[in-house]
């Protein structure tokens, strides 16, 4: 019920013309860094002219890279927020550092671009999971303080529909949750997701199928209860 209330009113078909207009030709490098455009949307703004934007970003155009970042970073953060206890923003920043390092060498279309960025983010997340696993387990009041001081990466105050959707998504089995996240947030096809996760395309299809059916069942029950 809560989710239904939040997701209503979200206009998915946001026109690309409403997004900030970026110069089509490379302009001289500005002294000040470009400011964040207002009301960025998670829709892939670079879809129509991705090749041109990517080429400009690879040539050093800050506006083009800004467009790529605004296009993908919110989805990246949401993907990383699915697992509790993960510093999604920090991992996203590490991901972009790696992406910037290899940006000039990247070749491919927008799907390949999404796959590359999300694969990088997934590796950073696995590295972070290993670091946290090696970290000595603290107990006592200090550990509790540490957990209390850490902000909840998935706010569930009812004002963020994406956060609530992530919360529900994270209740799914990990494979189903990750398959759905990669297919929805990264907009990756089945084969790409299968390659990223080391699973067969059939297993990915089944995971997505079962995950959606599970969510539908849960939402149906929540709607009845609420």
């Amino acid at each position, binding site marked *: 019920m809560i*989710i239904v209330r939040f*997701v209503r009113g*979200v206009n*998915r078909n946001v026109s690309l013309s409403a997004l900030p207009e970026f110069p089509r030709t490379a302009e001289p490098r500005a002294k000040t*860094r*470009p400011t964040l455009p207002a*009301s960025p*949307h*998670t829709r892939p703004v670079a879809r129509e002219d991705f090749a041109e934007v990517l080429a400009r970003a690879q040539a*050093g155009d*800050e506006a083009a890279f*800004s467009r790529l*970042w*605004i296009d993908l*970073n*919110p989805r990246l*953060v*949401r993907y990383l927020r699915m*697992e509790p206890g993960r510093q999604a*923003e920090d991992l*996203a*920043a590490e991901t*972009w550092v790696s992406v*910037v*390092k290899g940006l000039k060498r990247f070749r491919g279309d927008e799907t390949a671009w999404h796959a590359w960025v999300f694969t990088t983010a*997934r590796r950073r*997340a*696995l590295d972070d999971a290993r670091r946290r*696993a090696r970290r000595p387990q603290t107990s006592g009041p200090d550990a509790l303080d540490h957990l209390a001081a850490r902000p909840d990466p998935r706010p569930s105050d009812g004002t*963020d529909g*994406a*956060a609530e*959707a992530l919360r*529900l*998504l994270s209740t*799914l*089995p*990990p*494979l*189903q949750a*990750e398959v*759905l*996240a990669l297919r*929805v*947030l990264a907009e990756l096809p089945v084969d790409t997701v299968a390659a990223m996760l080391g699973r067969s395309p059939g297993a990915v*299809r089944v995971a*997505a*199928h*079962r995950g*959606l*059916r*599970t*969510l*539908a*069942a*849960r*939402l*149906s029950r*929540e*709607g009845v209860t609420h």
Partner: protein
Amino acid sequence: MTSNDFEPPVADDADLPHLSDGQVEALLRGHRPADTAPGTDRAADLVHALTGPAVASELTGYRAAMTTYTDAFSMRTSSRPRRLLLLSSLLGARTLAGVAGSALALGAVGAVVLTTSALGPSHAPEALPLATGSTTTTAASTHAPDDADQSDDADESEKDGTGSGSATAAVGPDAKGPAAFGLCNAWAHHQAEAGTTATADTSVAFRNLAEAAGGEGKIAGYCANVPHPGNAAAKARGSHGSTPGSGGKGKSTKAPKPAKPTKPTKPHSSSHSASPSARPTARPRTSAPTPSLTTPSRPAVTVTS
């Protein structure tokens, strides 16, 4: 992404709403499939919410990302000019060295040309004979139809005594032909100036003349009857004893020629008259040094051409 792939049982398939593959794909794209179970619409809304507008917490890394990007690309753009500068300096050094080498080479060639032109007078004899030869060849060619030139050559070889032995002993001027008038003229000059120094013993031409006259003592009488070459009637007749000459304007001007002191040029003129092909090569060589003497900038033009 997850550390383990253990999936706890959520629910039996019988408890889950039925979704076809097409409906699943539509849900993943954010569409609401038609004729589905009650919870499917909400699942579609959930998928739609996942791609909803970004919130502030999802854009906090913007400045850091742009800083990373600008630092990375400004470092590349700043290192590229250094490489370009190094490359351009190397290329500039090579270019400068090449230009300097070319300039030195051109200067050396120009200096050679200038030196050659400056030493023109001393080297001129190498070219001047060709020039004089060409001019004399031209003059000889203009006079070639007239057999009097043969008498001239005979006179020169007779005077300096450098004529080839075969030419003087075997041929000599024909005192009974068109050369008779010239021979007589020369004999008359010799008789008036030097007496009888030139006799038939020392000169083949005079011996021929004496033979034609029937003896040295009859030369005066013979020459008195030799017609002038300009007389066409006498030419047509072919004999020189029948009618006296009436003109004398053409060959009279050539009479002083044997007395001209131009002995060194005559062998060249004769040799080059025999080889007309020397004319094209002689013309540029005689004209080339001349401008280089007057205009020092010409050597460069000569080199480039």
